[in-house]
């Protein structure tokens, strides 16, 4: 591929296939698209900019080295990136000692930030839409279920650690977490179904117009 090629016009999957062939410009293009998503997630987990930047570097290095293992039928590229980022960040978090006390404060703050999160004009339409959907899904949860879910997902806490952190019985936390995941799953399924219907309706409308 010529160095003057416009990589911005390529879709994510094409970029990944080019990265697998060691096209550095494809990597920088993917970075430009998703570094904020990856960094935001890492920062939400590790609560330290320097560490979050290291996580971001590690995620894109992993893409550089493992692009050939990506399978589009399994996950979108953005999901693949967040999956890698989350696990790497949680690993770092779990290696830190005496985390419970420090994070209690961090998470009070983070949850309120999340609830008032604003749209990012620099992110792609797909990321914006997915962000919008997941925020809507989380906002429909009772506050205590949302809190348990966010502590588990972003805090990397086990159920018993959350119970200790919130001074609640373990059984209560287990129920909150289970219900929260089930409700988010149902909500996202509904959103996907209605989105698919809209796409089908738009497509039918376009076909009719062309006729």
């Amino acid at each position, binding site marked *: 591929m010529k160095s003057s090629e416009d990589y911005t016009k390529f879709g994510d999957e094409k970029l990944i296939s080019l*990265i697998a*062939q060691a096209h550095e410009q494809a990597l920088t293009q993917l970075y430009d698209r998703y570094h904020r*998503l990856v960094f935001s997630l890492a920062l939400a987990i590790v609560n330290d900019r320097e560490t979050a930047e290291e996580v971001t*570097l590690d995620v894109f290095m992993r893409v550089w080295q493992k692009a050939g293992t990506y399978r589009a039928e*399994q996950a979108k590229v953005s999901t693949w990136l967040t999956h890698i980022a989350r696990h790497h960040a949680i690993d770092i978090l779990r290696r830190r000692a005496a985390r419970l006390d420090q994070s209690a404060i961090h998470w009070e703050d983070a949850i309120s930030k999340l609830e008032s*999160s604003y749209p990012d004009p620099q992110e792609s339409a797909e990321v914006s839409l997915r962000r919008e959907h*997941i925020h809507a899904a*989380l906002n429909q949860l009772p506050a205590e279920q949302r809190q348990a879910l966010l502590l588990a*997902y972003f805090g990397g806490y086990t159920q018993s650690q959350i119970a200790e952190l919130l001074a609640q019985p373990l059984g209560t936390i287990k129920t909150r977490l289970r219900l929260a*995941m089930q409700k988010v799953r149902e909500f996202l399924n509904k959103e996907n179904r209605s989105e698919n219907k809209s796409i089908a309706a738009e497509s039918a409308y376009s076909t009719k117009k062309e006729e």
Partner: protein
Amino acid sequence: MADLSHETHVLDLLPAYAIGSLDADELNRVEQHLLSCWDCRNELRAFQTVADQLGFAAPVAAPSPDLRDRLMQRVHSVNTVRSKGQEPVATPAPARPFWERLLPAWGLASLFLIIGLAASTLILWQRVGRLEFATAPGGMRAVPLSATGSVPSATGFVLISVDGDNGALVVDGLPPLGESQQYQLWLLRDGQRTSGAVFSTDEKSYGGTRIRAPRSLLDYFAVDITIEPTGGSPQPTGTRVLGGALPNP
């Protein structure tokens, strides 16, 4: 879906498993159950999809503007082992290359010689009925794998170095696949599966490979082997043919 009664399945635990928040006792229970339950693995995938969406909820933030340059510097520093047009290389070898320490000049051939010798030893152990988690020569751990109903003839084992930094897999009775498919080994931990190897078997249904993982093999709970598209998948998609619990906490 088959009868998914909560007494025999682990459905209530799957949402927490998908986000890695189960405590050790329940985590072990779920991972043991998932080794043999297709229905629960299927249900788990739905919750893993939910877990994957949660990452998009993070409050928006931007890294330093120079991070992109730092990424490319790092890329250039590893490019000495990768040239344009080649398949991507795997994660760099662990800091303490166990197999190379044993036999530095023999390379891959020596690895398979070791595997072969260990296999012979293990077969003897099996014959005298002693094999569960055997301690192989040199303090390595040898973990037998069990066949599933899909390929009942399959056998195999995983060898893990003392420090857990290195491991190898040997399988027998796994028929060679077409060009479009390969076998893939998965390492289970905290509700997540990490690819440890993608490999093929020969015309005698025999195969072996080194296991590479982002962390010590002693940190994983179990292994699975599935049939995947050539090159491997990010997560298991195909039929599970072998599996086994690792002797780790």
